[in-house]
């Protein structure tokens, strides 16, 4: 059976249906923010080290920390918390507007000998 013969084929890059399309669009934005922050910050730190004296990085402090320590060690984890929070706010609104499935378990595993059942 080829993938296209079923009406249920999808992937992250080829979402199907409005709900999934909207969800993947937001996920892509969050992942872009995540990736750019990580790689961008390290390229920035690398370029600072290459182009300026080492002394500058030591003297250029932010909240008491050398800029590269603050940017990587303090800001990035904070940024992750922020984007996770934004994602959850969006999901809460999106889930309540579009479907009522968020918040429920579709399936559960029962004890041995019983069939799986949906809630």
């Amino acid at each position, binding site marked *: 059976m080829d993938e296209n013969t079923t009406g249920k084929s999808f*992937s992250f890059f080829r979402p199907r249906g409005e709900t999934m399309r909207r969800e993947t669009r937001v*996920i892509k934005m969050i992942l872009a923010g995540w990736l750019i922050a990580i790689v961008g910050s390290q390229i920035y730190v690398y370029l600072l080290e290459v182009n300026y004296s080492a002394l500058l990085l030591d003297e250029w402090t932010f909240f008491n920390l*050398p800029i590269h320590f603050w940017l990587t060690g303090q800001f990035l984890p904070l940024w992750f918390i922020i984007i996770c929070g934004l994602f959850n706010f969006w999901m809460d609104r999106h889930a309540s507007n579009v479907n009522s499935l968020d918040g429920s378990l579709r399936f559960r595993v029962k004890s041995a000998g019983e069939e799986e059942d949906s809630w």
Partner: protein
Amino acid sequence: MVNSTVQVLPLAIVVGLFAIFIISGLRHHARKQSEYGLSGVYTGRIGIGAAIASNWMSAASFLGLAGMFYLKGYFAMAFVVGWTGGYVLLLVLMASQIRRFGKFSAPDFVGFRYESEGARTLTAFILIIITIIYSVAQFRGIALLVSWLLGIGYVPAVIVGSLLLVMFVVVSGTLGATRNQQLQYFVLITAFILPLMLLTRKLGYFWILPQFGYGAAISDLYLQFGFAWSEPFLNTTLFQWLALCFTLMFGTAGLPHVLSRFYAVPGIRDARWGVVWGLFFIALIYWSAPAYGVLARLFEARNNIPFNAGDGQAADMVVLTAATLGGLPVWVIGLLAAGGMSAAFSASAGLLLSGAASFSYDIYPRLIRRDASENDKIFAAKGFFLIMAAIVTVLTLKPWGVIAEIAAFAFALAGNTIFPAFLLGIWWCRANSTGVISGMLTGVVITFMPFILGDALPMVSRLFPVTSSAFIGAPLVMIVMIVVSRLTAPPSEEMRLFLARDVHDCQ
């Protein structure tokens, strides 16, 4: 840090803390039996977050991370970013979707999604290998703390620490104590941050937020001793940093005991917000850990103690070194040791128990004894727990790195195997059993390749470093999964319908 005297007060604090945990666990158990099997009792989203953070905390977080800062300076920031950034992947790509499968372990998930007993069994084997590797890091932490507390050498401390862990699991299990993870997190965070506040206050730095205050120590190290942390990529490359960082992120999103948190929470929204709170609680530790490494260096410099980059044991004990050289009261040092011991004990006990459960549930009745009764499975789980503890003990006698490096190796294996299996299983309906088995086997080969071919082919070690192989490895595994899945029969129509309708709400 090894001396020949018993640290009486710290030892009493460690024993007292474990007694409190067991008593609290018994009270919880009596008050409310957990409905979710893998969890303790939950009290709202903050409670779920504290439970996630408590479950996450291990010797690697409590002792190993500070040790990496002490040894490698800025390079260790890859651990901070990797171990927090992985939760973003976990939240946006997996947390909600995993819950919708309603499966309660990684082998369960893989077996169900890929409709394959072979894939399920392979996942169980990989999970057990991950458990063993990760437990070596925990046992090393336990051994170093036991060595310090009892004033004995490293090798006897490994044996004593292992016996103590087995006794702890047996006593907790016999008494029926469950983990009060919220209490444990509160104790861990207090044990970690209070000594840091006292140290920075003593040094005259900004002590209210020692996570920022330690910046002054970096300046002092440079001004007084000419020691510079200001060239982040002097001894490493940008590739090495990113490879480690992304490996830890992929591994975080693929570690079985992290994934299991999402099966164990009542609602999807609670699971999602629990991740955010969990990430915040974890970040509190990781914002603080670099300070211990920096302060230990400062105190050593002030005491004319030469820095030895090859002393892994000293590096793994810098949290206690900083507190000791900083002249903190003994009870504070005891609290710190108790926190480290608690983190290492709970992480290794949880891992070994889940590994034993995986053996008794996924391997024993399928490969060894098909007619195994429930009693047989329980017996097999107990026996395999002891076997794994023995294997980990032997490996801990001669570990291949410091705590954080050993843990990173486990993350690399998880990132090369479980992470791609979950990611494509959730987000690509065409991924099939042949693809996932081929992919996971490729992931295992990639993870161990530096050990096997590293000497003969130096390029292998450069592209797939032992602790950082998933940066290139995980995408490679996904390519293998995609190609093999494309060349073989697709999953059943029912599974694709389930994915479309029940997991992704495709209209």
